[in-house]
Structures are given as C-alpha cells and as structure tokens.
C-alpha cells in the first residue's frame, strides 16, 4: 500500500534570510544569485539554492548540504546589496508528501491549498495552530514543505498527530 502521508525532517538543509539593502532591487540581488527573485509569496529554484519570498525586500534562502559556513559565503556574494543572516540552527523544515499531505495541511492552514490556487512555485507566510510557518509547494506536485521555528517543534508535532488521527490518515514520520 502506498503511504497516504510521509513526513520527513530535512536534516542537512542550510537556511538564511536575505534582506535587501536600501535601494537594492530584487532584480539586482537576483542577478547576483543567478535567479529571478520572487516579489510576492512564492519560491524559485536554481541549481545552488531555493529562495522563498517572505516579505517586501526579504527572502528565505535554502541550500541542501551546503555546510555551516554557507551563509558567510552568501553574505560575501551579496555584499553591498543585501544583509544575510543565518537561520539554519533555529528553523526546522518538514517535507509532507503523499496524497494525504494537502488534506492534513489544509486542516491547519487558512489559505486555499488547491493546486489551482497554490500550485508549483507558491509559498506563504502563515500560521498553523497558532504556530508561525512558511509553507510552500514542492516541485513534486503533491508535496509541501513547512518551515517553523525550532522551539515549536513539539507543539507542531502534537498538531500533526492529532490532526492526522482525526482524519484517519496513517502517516510515516521516520525522524522528527
């Protein structure tokens, strides 16, 4: 049987917030990174990193397995255009996959996650069960990723367990 829902914590992900310096446009910061930065809630991808739009002039960059000093390199790369601040230690990212992913998340998110409305490239800064999250649809269509502050992990887990049980969703979550 195919699992309805698998939840995995992304273990080797590095994250950093990018904040535009005064007068630096998304276009010129993006040019330095080799991708067109989103100017709305959404995400883009290059071979090196993913970037989520989290607010005017602010983004969250993600890089898989880039090592602990990645944000320093990013900071140098964006010198004069943007301030970079590492968030790898304080943010956890969970990947939700399988047909049950949308059903589960929709019970917590007050935004419409239907693919017509929240399709590939969509992202949102919102809340689940009073916990602030950044949520985006992954490149695999049925999948989502959710970033939240590490301190809320236990409460978030409780929300997942009770909500999945309420919907009768069996799920696999190998590592929290």
């Amino acid at each position, binding site marked *: 049987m195919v699992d309805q829902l698998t939840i995995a914590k992304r273990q080797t992900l590095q994250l950093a917030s990018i904040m535009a310096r005064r007068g630096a446009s998304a276009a010129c910061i993006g040019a330095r990174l080799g991708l067109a930065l989103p100017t709305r809630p959404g995400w883009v991808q290059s071979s090196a990193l993913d970037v989520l739009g989290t607010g005017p002039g602010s983004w969250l960059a993600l890089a898989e397995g880039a090592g*602990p000093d990645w944000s320093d390199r990013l900071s140098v790369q964006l010198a004069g255009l943007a301030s970079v601040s590492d*968030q790898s230690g*304080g943010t956890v990212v969970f990947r939700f996959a399988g047909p049950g992913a949308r059903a589960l998340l929709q019970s917590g998110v007050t935004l419409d996650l239907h693919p017509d409305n929240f399709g590939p490239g969509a992202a949102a800064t919102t809340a689940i069960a009073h916990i602030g999250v950044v949520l985006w649809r992954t490149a695999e269509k049925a999948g989502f990723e959710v970033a939240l*502050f590490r301190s809320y992990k236990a*409460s978030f887990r409780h929300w997942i367990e009770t909500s999945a049980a*309420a919907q009768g969703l069996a799920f696999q979550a190998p590592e929290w």
Partner: protein
Amino acid sequence: MSRLAQGGLIDRTRRYAFTFDGKAFSGFAGDTLASALVANDIKLVGRSFKYHRPRGILTAGPEEPNALVTLGAGAAAEPNCRATMVPLFDGLQASSQNRWPSLSCDILAINQLFSPILVAGFYYKTFMWPSRFWEKLYEPLIRRAAGLGALTPAPDPDRYDRAHGFCDLLVIGGGPAGLAAALTAGRAGLRVILADMDRLWGGRLLAEHQLIGGQEGHQWASTVAEELAALPNVTLLPRTLIFGIYDGREYAAVQHLADDQAAAPAGRPRQRFWKIIARHAVLASGAIERPLVFGGNDRPGVMTASALSTYVNRFAAVPGKRVVLFTTSDSGWTSAFDLIAAGIEVAAVVEARPDLPALADRVRRAGIEILAGAVVTDVRGRSVGSVEIVTQHGGRRRIAADVLAVAGGWNPNIGLGGNLGGRPVWSDSIHSYVLDESPPGLQPIGAAAGRFALSDALADGLRAGSEVAAALGVTAAAADLPACSDDAVALAPIWQVRGAKGKAFVDFQHDVTDEDIALAAREGFRSVELMKRYTTLGMATDQGKTSQVNAHGLLAAATGRKIADIGTILSRPPVLPVAIGVLAGAHRDQHFRPERHTASHQWAAEQGASFVDAGLWKRAQCYARPGDKDWRETVNREVTTTRTGVGFCDISTLGKIELQGPDAAILLDRLYINSFSTLAVGRARYGVMLREDGFVMDDGTTTRFAEDRFFLTTTTVNAAKVMQHIDYARQVLWPELDVQAVSVTEQWASFSVAGPRARDLLQQILPDKDLSNDAVPFMAARECHWQGVPAKLFRLSFSGELAFEISVWASQGDRLARALSEAGRAFGATPYGTEALGVMRIEKGHPAGNELNGQTTAPDLGLGRMMSKKKDFIGRVMAMRPGLTDPARPALVGLRPVASGERIRAGGHLLEKHAKAIAANDQGHVTSAAFSPTLGHWIGLALLRHGPERHGEQIVIHDPLRGADIAAQVCSPRFVDPEGVRVRG
C-alpha cells in the same frame, strides 16, 4: 408500537435499542430520536421552561422548541439536544430535562397555578429590592428553578477537529433548490461545497410524496447526490450546520461526524469545525412551518402539519390514532392527503379560510368532515383528547382526537442572511419576512427566498447555479427543468385565535403567551426589540424559530399597526446551538496554546528540572535532586555552587536580533538612551531603551561584531515587542536609514557559564580558545566555532560572577548542554534554573521584569546617568517631563530585614517608622525579594521615594495581604560584590 407496516426511509432490518428516562425502547436505523419516540407512542417528552407544562414533539426539524433532551451520561452528557435532530443509534441514552422528580410528576408544575402573576416582567418587578439580594439570593434561586438542562462539570471526553474549505459556490441546504444549484455548478466544473444538517439529501423531498421527472422526490435527490459525490470538484458535507456568516465571505460550520454513535472511534473527532471561504453562496435553507396560537396549543399531541407528514412519510411513524387538522394554508391539505394515503383516521379538517382551496375536493371524496371558516380555540386534555372548534357562524363543536396538526403558513429560514446586519423585510405576498439585503456573494433561493412551490425551487437552483458559473466566466450547460408535481402554496395567516380559554403559547421554549405580548404592548414596549427583551420571546436556545413571526403579528395587532411597519429583529450567529468544544478544537488543556521549548529542554527534563512558563516558553525553573526537602534547598544549592564553583544556565529565551547595514549604529543610537556608535568591534555594551512616553521599555546587551553588524538581546517577554519596535523605527520613522533587522532568537542556543571556575569549565568546551582576561576581557565578544559549528562567545555576567555566555546554533544546543554537563562534572558544576538566576540578579541589584514594569524611568532604576545628553533618542523628550524627573519618585534601593530571620515579601508597601498604614503615607513597594544563600538572610529590591538618599534608614514593610509588618533597613541594591571585582576576574 405505532409504525406503519411499510414505507419510510428507515432500515427495518436494523433494530436499535435505546432508553428514554431509563425505560427501554427500540427503533430502526434511519430514525431520529423523535421519530423513534413517536413510533413508541411517547407523547410527553419534556417540561417547559417557566411553567413546567408537559410538552410533546412539535416539529420534525432543527426549529424544535419542546423536545429537548440530555443525551448520554456522565462526562459525555450533552444537554438541550433537539430530539428531532438526534440520529438514533444502538444504545442511545436520552433523558428528559427540567423536571423533578420525574417527567410525569413535576413539582414545579405548581408554577402554572401562579401563572397569573408569573407573566412577562415578573422577575424584574418582583426581585428588584433589596438590590443586594439579587446576586446572593434571587438570581441563584431563579436559576435553579429555571434553566434548561444542566452541564456536566467533568472535562469533555470528546475530540474535535478543524478544517478549512474553499469553493466557488457554497450551497447551504440540500433540498431541491440546493441540489439543483450544486448539480448545475458542479457539472460546470466549479468547486462546490454542499452542506445540509440532515444525513440524507433531499430536504422536504424526504418528507413529502413529490414527483420529479417521474421519480419519487427522495429518489431524485439520491440520484443527484450520487452524481455530485462522483464529481472531484464537489465536496458533500452531510450532517453539517452552517451556523454563521462573517466578513470576507467566510462561513462557519460544524460537521457532525460521530453523533450517530455512542462514542467516536479512538482518536477520531465527534465533530469538525469548518471555516469555509466561498466566492458565492446560495441560501437554500428552506422554510419553517408556523404553529398557530390558540388555547392549549402547547399540549402534547399538537404538532405542525409538516412534522406529521414527515413522521408518517419518512419514518412510517404514526403520532396518533385520530387526527384533526387545523390549517390556514394549502400545505395543510397536502398533509391530509399523506394521512389518508397512510390509512390514518382524519376526524376533520378545520380550515380558517372561508373559501376552500381546490385541494379540499380530494379530502371530501375521502369522506372526511371539512369545517371551512372555522378555528380551533382550545385543546382539551393533558395531552390532546379533543379539540374545541368555533365554526364559521359562531357555532361550537368538540371533536375527539389525539393529534392536532396545525398549519399556520411558512417562514423562509433566513436567519443566516441577517448575520451581517441586513434586516429582513415583510412580504405581503407570502405573509412572512424575506431577505432584502443579503450578505455579499449570497443569494437566497427556493423556499428560503419565499418561493415555496417545488417547481420554483428547482428553477431557482438551476438558475443560481448557472449564474454563479457565468459570474466566474464558466458556461454551465443549461439543464432543463424536470417535470415535477404541482404543489399549491396559498395561505391566509391568522396570528391569534380569539376566544381561547386556555393559555395560548407563542414561544413554547420560553413560555411566552399571547397575553405576555399584549402586556408588553400595554406597558409601552412597542418596538419588536423591546417586546423581545421584556418577554424574552425568541431568546431561548431555539432563538424563536417557530415564534418570532407569530409574535410580530400579535404585536402589530396589539399596537394597531400593520405587521409590515413594526420591523423585525436580526439573528446573530450561531443560528443553531453549537458545542463550545468544537470551537476550541484541539486547543484545550495544556494544548490551549503552543509551547516553545529551548534546545536543552529534553536534557533538562532528564535532569529532573521543573519548568516555568515565560510567555510561550517553558524554562527550567530549578533542578531538584532526590533528597532535596523543598525547592528552596535546590535553589540555594544552585546559587551557592555557582558563586563558589561554577554553574550554567540556558538563557536561550532572551530575544536576539541581528541588525545589519551601514546605518545600523545610527539606528541603535536612536533606539537606546546610551550610545552604540562608539562601541568597538568585538565589544558588548548594556543598553536601555525607552518607549515614546519616556518610560523604560526594555534592556539588554548589544554587541558589535562588524562595523555594520550588531547583535542585540532583549528580555524574554519583550522579544517580539522590541522586534516590532525596531521594524517600526526603521520602516516608518527613518526609512532613509540603510539598516536591516531580523530575529535570530531561535537561531542561537545560549548558555551562561558563571562562577569562579567558569573559565576552567569553558576551556574544556573550547580547548583551543584563549579565554584569558587579555584575550577575552570583561564585555568582550568573539565569533568562533564549537566542533565545527558557528558559535559566539561573550564575556557577560548577570550573576555578578566571572561569567561567559556561549551561543551555538540551536540545532546543536542539546549537544552543548550535554557537553557542559559532562565537562562540568570535574568541577562540581551545577545547572541552574530561573529561580537561581533570579536570586543572583537580586543579590546584584539588576533590575528585571518586576522593576521594568512599564511605570519606571531610567533614573528610577539607577540608570539615569546612562541617558546621553549628546544625542537624541526615542523617549528622550517625554522622559524630561517634570513628573518623570521628580527626585521624589520611588527609585531602586535594597532592603534587608533588621531582625535577620525575617522574611521580606514582594508586594509589601513601604512606610516610614510609626507612620499610619494609609495610602497617603505610602513610600513605595518591594518589587523583588529572595532568600540570599550568599548572605544567609532575606533581601529585597524596592522602589522607594527618595530611595538613593535613604541608605541606612529603617523603614517598615507593610504587608496586609500576608500578615505582619517587618522592620527593614534601606541599603544599596548591590548586596554581593558591590565593587564588581568578580566579573573582571
């Protein structure tokens, strides 16, 4: 048993046992509790609110005012359930309410004898004096006598879930109009949500013998529902109540998931709360039949004609053996057909209209007596035994019957439509209220729009479905209106039957009679809103669904106005009662709000730490060891070990903000009372920020790690507020500054390592780092690595000891806590919690939350000299106000007891020796107090008038809350190491 031999939408192969007031009965799958009671010949189901009159089942729907029961027992008991809406299940337990000692013999029925004085306004008039008796005596007594059902004080054992729905079209009601609308929109590919309170689709079609396209109506409905269920763009929500409409096209709903079984399966919810955002919605909620107002109209056995049809047609349950039908509308005659078809004796049809409708012929052909232009004036018997009739020409008749069916006309069920303030208007054509101004995006259709005929309902549904599709740019295939039965809908309402001898009820649930409304009018409560509040009509759990319009008719008559001119009331959500548990969902008990755990939480729990709330954070309070006789022993040990050896403490909850950009230093100078532009790279400085009004907002340290990069800390509780304050300053006040700010509170797990051996312990953690005074002097800071992961090292001290703070990525915090614990073993190190932290900061006289209470200035806290005179900063101007610079303001001092064993308690007020303990003599108060294991006695911090000038003076700490006054000596707040030698060690 009064069950027809065949027919009905019940499953006769599944028999369910249930109890009512402890007596065993049985019914079938598909029954409601009400239909099962009807089939078991149970007429008496409850007692009324005020007079405790015996009551039966009046309706077959959600509007039911009488048949309220308590379901279940113990913690799961739920009061005030409408028996008409309770699906029967095997093992159901129901009990009647509002009666003592039993339903058939209720002592408070004696209230009926006092009914001449228990009229509307009785309580207001009678229990006015003496006013102090109200709260203590009258109200509790009245509440015990009245009340409707009783809540269980036990915690709710059920679970509740939450969901969010989004659609192009929300269809409220799954009757003919709603199904037609959902089908049209669904076939066009729109995202549709269809909700109905019933478990079956069809609405009135389930209760009537209508034909659609040659099929029985209920068969048509189930065919449509099957098609809808197969459409991926359609969500069907049976047994779902849409209970409110809110701004932004938001609809609130409750889905009953497990109310048709004794208990939900383990882990599964009983109900689910839905928040639905709908671009468009149709209100296809149907209509509610009005009762008629005559003497004894509340007796068990009186039932609306549509309810009678429902019990007979849908449930094959027969409410009685001999029926009199009293009607003012064509629909009443249709009920007569239903009874004839089922072979139930109809004694007579009493039609209030003098001209009989064409429908009467069929009844006459069946040999049934018809009384035109006649009215029922009274019901005789405790439950219906016979009815008194006044004929067209004033003659009197008495006809024996055990059921009286009443058909008073129909009210569109439009409560939801008024939720956003649109007031319904009177329609002379249907003799009821219709929506005038609907909430945005919502349109009523079918009976809810006053279009009662089946063909109109279907046509409305088809039209609305394609209109919504068109509005969204989708073309819906035009569906043909199916051929359907022709039903007549004419009526001529009567609001009150004159000449009744018995009590005539308007609001059954709140026991409001026609006389109460007349009294309200006589006493000047002529507005419907005032009449409602004076009589409490419509204010019971049914919100007057069967009573409101009749009451309007009576009030209009009593005040000599037309009903169209008296206006009507608005309904608020919820339109029907909703369990409060479903609104809370999973957010109850310890999960009421989320918790935040620091990185060392798990480790601390393993060490036996107890935790304390700091906002959402759980912080380790102290680490009790087996054998500690109380928490103070634990705390004393933690303090003493730290002051004499070494201790470490998780301080990760402090707010942390990274400030970057060329103008970061300029912004900091404006945020803080002291300067940061002069701070050297690699150095930290303590800072205080004020609110605009000049009072202290927060404090913390700021470290400069690069020319354009600073690291700020805030207090735990003010972390979000300070972040907001900084964003406001840089985005709104000074957008010209090139400065960026981001919270990094969660990024860093921070530990304070304090005590004479702090350097030795930390050296074990950072073996390659030079931690000497020369390399890392007091107030220095360094960026470094710990085991390959970025770390920050600060030479800061809150305890007053030689201390460092080490921060690592929070993902590594658990490892660092374990490493500190492991390495600390060699030094006898202790972890310490917030209690020891608090004791040590009081010993050092550092202000914290109790002193930074929003009412203190920098000088009050002894920090006045930090206020720069060379620059401007937020709060500077207002801090110069005379009231804030008054030297007599209470300012920070230390207190020690004169008799060393005495305990100083926070909250005690300060008086001069021998001064009388009155507010005018108040000199200040104790803000923080602790037992100092270092000094061996209690100490306190206080805000005292002229405090800094009064060191050495003896004062009195007056503590009327907890007892004795004690004598204390004013001293410096720096109890330990006042010169600050140790921090530089």
